[in-house]
């Protein structure tokens, strides 16, 4: 088994994707809490907003890693999500701190529905990519 840099990348990506899955689940639960009036939007946004940039930065980090490891297929699969993250962050409402969620608009039914869907889609994507990295890691480890 050849322990190449690519294998190392895949391993790290696997671990970090677990963290991203955790973030996605946190988002889904948070929006569900908002929808069922369990929490105040101001408090909820204060917990959600600090998590946004770390998630995006982690994703950028392993895109960069795959670039260095010359894993083009994996990089190509992650490009749409990167573009989506960039678009989402640049079109966020005016706010002084980091984050995407504004407590005054988040309770609009369409914004809430959009964020929930985003949470589910991201969860699905991260799960799929988790298995893909697992496969990729084994493939890279086994092939010499």
């Amino acid at each position, binding site marked *: 088994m050849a322990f190449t840099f690519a294998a190392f990348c895949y391993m790290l990506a696997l671990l970090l994707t677990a963290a991203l899955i955790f973030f996605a689940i946190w988002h889904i639960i948070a929006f569900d809490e908002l929808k069922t009036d369990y929490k*105040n939007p*101001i408090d909820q946004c204060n917990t959600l907003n600090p998590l946004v940039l770390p998630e995006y930065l982690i994703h950028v980090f392993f895109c960069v890693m795959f670039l260095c490891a010359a894993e083009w297929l994996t990089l190509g699969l992650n490009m749409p999500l990167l573009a989506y993250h960039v678009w989402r962050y640049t079109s966020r409402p*005016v706010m*002084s701190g980091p984050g995407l969620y*504004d407590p005054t608009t988040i*309770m609009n*039914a369409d914004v809430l529905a959009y964020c929930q869907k985003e949470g589910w889609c991201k969860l*699905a994507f991260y799960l*799929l990519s988790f*298995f893909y990295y697992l496969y990729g890691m084994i493939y890279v480890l086994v092939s010499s």
Partner: protein
Amino acid sequence: FHFYLSNFLFSYLYFSLSMTIEYFLHHWPIHLSSVPFYHVHLCSTPEPCGHDLPISFYCVTNCLPFLSAALGGLSGVPELEVEALRPVNLLQERNLLPHRPLDAPEPNLSADLKKANCSPDTFRCTLTNIPQTQALLNKARLPLGLLLHPFRDLAQLPVITSNTIVRCRSCRTYINPFVSFLDQRRWKCNLCYRVNDVPDEFMYNPVTRSYGEPHKRPEVQNSTVEFIASSDYMLRPPQPAVYLFVLDVSHNAVEGGYLNVFCHTLLENLDKMPGDTRTRVGFITFNSTIHFYNLHESLSQPQMLVVSDIDDIFIPTHDSLLVNLKESRALVRVLLTSLHSMFSQTRETHSALGPALQAAYKLMSSTGGRVSVFQTQLPTLGAGLLQSREDPNQRSSTKGVQHLGPATDFYKKLALDCSGQQIGVDLFLLSSQYSDLASIACMSKYSAGSIFYYPSLHHVHNPAQLDKFQKDLERYLTRKIGFEAVMRIRCTKGLSIHTFHGNFFVRSTDLLSLANINPDSGFAVQMSIEESLADTSLACFQSALLYTSSKGKRRIRVHTLCLPVVSQLSDVYAGADVQAITCLLANMAIDRSISSSLSDARDALVNAVVDSLSAYKNTVSNIQQSGLIAPAALCLFPLYVLALLKQKALRTGTSTKLDERVFAMCEFKSQPLQQIMRMVHPDLYRLDTMSDQGALHLNDCIVPQPHLLHLTAEKLTREGAFLMDCGNVFYLWIGKCCNDMFIRDVLGCPNHASIPPIMTQIPELETPLSERLRALLAWLQDSRTFSSTLHVVKDDATAKTSFFQHLVEDRSESAFSYYEFLLHIQQQMSK
């Protein structure tokens, strides 16, 4: 191993992908590109999905008269329906305006229900016949929403002081005239259909002193009631009335002269402010530093405390900055009389609004209350400082208007903090230059405050504006107020509210947090139909406003509206309320222009007309003639939408100052419906041919009721005199060749040429013409709460531009005339 692993992974991928796709096909709403406001759900079954209802609801025969009336709700008046559906060819019929201002359409209910129903001034729906399913609503292409004015000043209000407030056990709806009593001891909720028990105390009717007739109790006879709330409804002991005034005392402010008027008005109205013995007041003034005033009653003179460290505001002393009004009244008077002279020589030009607001927040956070902020320029110092974002060359741009949203979220965050502490912030902007109202208005928008704007207020150059400021301030100080309020709007099962418009903070999906509630704010909500309403013939809406009165009593004001449910598209059109639809569309357009762009919002408005008229033509009307056919209920819809497109808030191509535009947008979002309609489509009357026909006789006064005219220069003649009622301003236009007798009798001038160029008051002359005109003006003024200025516009005066801009049916340099607009719509419809 490779082979099996890859196989497994790919089959897993395929499986999960197909599951995800299936999930989204069933649950993802799709935006229709040509219908920007509506969502369509892809349902797997074409039939509406109903829910089970106990058979007993329909099988109760020996029920009380109320129930049978409810079942027979759709007794309908066929003639009214037919009249509302009469096809009107808009291209041919020119005289569409009714003679008198439009009344709200009456819902198609039985007489009992109509009598008990909520007044349309308080609660109004865009469609008085609610469609049964979302599919039917989408076919009609009209928005479904409610416009409320819950805290309106009411002449009569039944107040219930019973110990138990009867509410449904599951949905917590208050008992209302539209519930059904199954027998003497049980009632069925009209919103969630749950059967509840009637408590024993409710069986006794204190009004008629009779027992055993729960349906005669005042809560069940009136749709607008006020309950006195018990301590279960209080999170903390009811707060006293606390008023804090935050005043800009920079050079600009003092030079403009508002401070004098403010102090004078407040002195006169100090005792008329709502409150009781616990009422407290405080003052903060600011320029580049913040000044607090110690008004402890033991002092002989108010003591000013200056805090110059604006980056880290602290409160200098812990008490006596917000003092009990009764005890420190003398000191407050001394302060108000000397405030102007204290700052008359000031040379400070900076304004530290942000730090002043932070100080106000710190001062008020223990009690909550109302903060009134008076600002005369752009805030230039400290936290929340703003830059001038307006480019004067872009005022008449047709491409797009920038900077409609806030530049910083400082004011929004402050408003949210204030809302959490039950502090409402009202803003009076009195500046003559750009002050970034888009950013500072946020302090009022989310803390349930009101925004007032007096551009170019100056005691010498613009005394009319100063006069209006003074009268408005008087109304503002003396009007009723509710503190620490929350409002909840409940609807019949199957309907849900998805967007709210107005000045408040949406705390959860249907709970609105209003730090202050006042009788002059209106709200709008948009609804969607989640489940089919096929099992019910009546849809009900209830708004419950829980607030603390200025006397420290906790009260709940409940309004209930009942509307019939219909299954035919023609019925939906017959019940369309064109004024409510226009106001709701205005709210939606303003949201759209801030979140995406102004041109998008304008296109969406035009599309709303095109879509609804196309839908009518294709599905309801069988007439295949040329021309633009609309149902009589919607015949004014294109006219109102054209008027909306020419409003200051939404127009392009005509020079509009950014602050005035933003203020017009704020007005649309917070004014009640009648005021908005007067702003959108002013009422134009001819004065010199007024007769006593149809006049009202009130208090020995004869108030003439002239007919409405279309807003076009065709209706103006040089021999006539006309009055235009625009909501907050009246224009009196006198033609060049107007009858000299009229001018003499009404204006006191011998002829047209001698009318002064700026005339803002009608002299009180003893002639019958003058009496009639003044009676009409007074009657119109009474129908609104804030004072309206009057401008006499001669044929060649400068107020002429404003007057002529309101003639919406005429072509202007960048906008269609009414006829051209109709042709444009016809063209869009045929695409």
